[in-house]
């Protein structure tokens, strides 16, 4: 009876939250989050610092008690069945969680033992992750002698030693160089597919999220403010744009010509920004029209909205703590030379 309710409620979801909330005093770090993530998804959580991503993950990992609402992993309630939840998950923490008095290999072995791997499986997996995170040579040195980047890589490797049903990655690749990030993600993606691991990840790198995630939720002030596939989110910004830098764009004559020829165009800082469906296909037509209208084009560029733009539009902030909202209109609309 209960089981039927469970199944219909979960609708095949492996991660399910409903009204999930965490309050610290009056402050809601996570505020009524509803999520339903299907097996095999690589689901991204994007949000500025302090948005509540880590708190949300901590509740799903049973280390933080929800104030209200509910959550389940593989149908196990995080409050009622924490032990069963922990048997289904793995996590790479945002913050350091290694024992620095042990060697890298010992940290991995400890993890394998905690997760009940047999010796043969453990040594094979450990060798494989040490290879992945390029710590083979340093595996037998104490972690306290490691650099920050080495520690981060070891943390990632440790999270990949046992194969959980659900893997949480809380800004795992922060601070690593692009090449390392790239091959770690390739490995993770492959592993997830092969072992049918569902991934819930947060990252500061928008390109990573865009490349990897089947769906993305944008979270701000503890609330989910947008959710969809990367394409769906980007289409919120009205598709692609063609940006033409014009000669004498500020003169009334040119303004008039632009208005007459492209009624939907906007003028910013000497450039004309035109929303189109497919920039690459339409740009030659646009240029043709401009030429016949006598509009002098100095430079052209096309722009596809990135998740960064979506993020900026929804939260008014850049995801990294860069200063937001500068006068540079090109930043919002026409990041140059992107495809």
């Amino acid at each position, binding site marked *: 009876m209960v089981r039927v309710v469970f199944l219909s409620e979960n609708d095949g979801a492996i991660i399910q939250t409903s009204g999930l909330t965490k309050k610290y005093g009056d402050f809601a770090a996570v505020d009524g989050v509803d999520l339903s993530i299907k097996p095999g998804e690589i689901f991204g959580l994007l949000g500025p610092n302090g948005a509540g991503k880590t708190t949300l993950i901590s509740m799903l990992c049973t*280390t933080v008690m929800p104030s209200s609402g509910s959550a389940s992993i593989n149908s196990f309630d995080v409050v009622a069945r924490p*032990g069963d939840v922990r*048997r289904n998950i793995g996590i790479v923490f945002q913050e350091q*969680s*290694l*024992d620095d008095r042990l060697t890298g290999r*010992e940290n991995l072995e*400890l*993890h394998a033992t905690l997760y009940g791997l047999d010796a043969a499986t453990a040594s094979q997996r450990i060798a494989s992750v040490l290879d992945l995170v390029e710590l083979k040579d340093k595996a037998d040195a104490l972690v306290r002698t490691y650099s920050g980047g080495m520690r981060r890589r070891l943390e990632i490797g440790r999270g990949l030693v046992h194969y959980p049903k659900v893997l949480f990655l809380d800004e795992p690749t922060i601070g690593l160089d692009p090449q390392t990030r790239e091959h770690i993600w390739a490995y993770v993606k492959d592993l997830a597919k092969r072992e049918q691991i569902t991934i819930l990840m947060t990252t500061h790198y928008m390109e990573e999220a865009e490349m990897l995630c089947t769906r993305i939720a944008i979270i701000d002030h503890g609330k989910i403010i947008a959710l969809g596939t990367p394409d769906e989110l980007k289409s919120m910004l009205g598709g692609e744009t063609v940006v033409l830098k014009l000669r004498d764009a500020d003169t009334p004559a040119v303004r008039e010509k632009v208005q007459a020829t492209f009624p939907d165009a906007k003028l910013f800082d000497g450039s004309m920004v035109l929303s189109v469906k497919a920039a690459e296909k339409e740009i030659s037509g646009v240029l043709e029209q401009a030429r016949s209208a006598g509009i002098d084009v100095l430079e052209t560029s096309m722009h596809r909205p990135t998740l960064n733009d979506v993020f900026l539009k929804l939260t008014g902030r850049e995801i990294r703590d860069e200063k937001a909202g500068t006068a540079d209109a090109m930043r919002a609309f026409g990041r140059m030379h992107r495809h």
Partner: protein
Amino acid sequence: MTMKNEVMGVYAVWLREFKRFYRDRGNLLGSVARPLMWFLIIGGGLGAAGQQATGGFSYFTFIAPGIIGMTVLFTSLFQGVSVIWDREFGFLKEMLVAPISRVSIVIGKALGGATSSLLQSLLIIGVAYAVGVTMPIAGALAMLPLIVVISVGFTALGLTIASFMDTMEGFNVIMNFIVMPMFLLSGALFPIAATGGLMATAVYLDPMTYGVEALRYAAIGVSSVSPVVSLAVVFAFTAAMSVVATVAFSRRK
């Protein structure tokens, strides 16, 4: 299957404690140097100050079980309290999300504390013989199981304290108001029969008193408290602290 995982979990937690213990060379050296100092300074000084009611044994021999008790108390409490460090440096999270019960973590920690206490006690027994303590080998051996039981109790006490402390800030308070009084009142350094009044009350309220009494009885066959009572209190304390520690450690925020 699950049981096997829990046993492996206990082993993993224990092994980590053990590795950290034996890698800490400074601590190991201290565990020999400190009792040696106690023997030479306190033992030498007080012993010279006059023959006391030490049951006919030399003062060195009298305080040897006390110094072992002290070491067990300090080592175990610190090992329990070290969970605060685990939390501060983040490693606690790795244990808390692992698929093993909180009980297994507590047991692993307690066995870790007991192992460290046992190894240090063996070193001190060596030091004791070296400075001329006359204690039968059988007596020294009889202390070992007691050391394990006492140590589990105090590691559990340390864990309980750590469960209620979020940072290391309260650490000195614990040292000054829990550990030191427990040690000083325990009769490790003096015969408790000689105390009276309020002091005596405090002595008999200190759980460590019974640990020291039991150790001394095991080692040299003398005690002020009946060994049956001492043993009963030692076991009761360890059992109660184990339950309290497990409950305290399993609380979630």
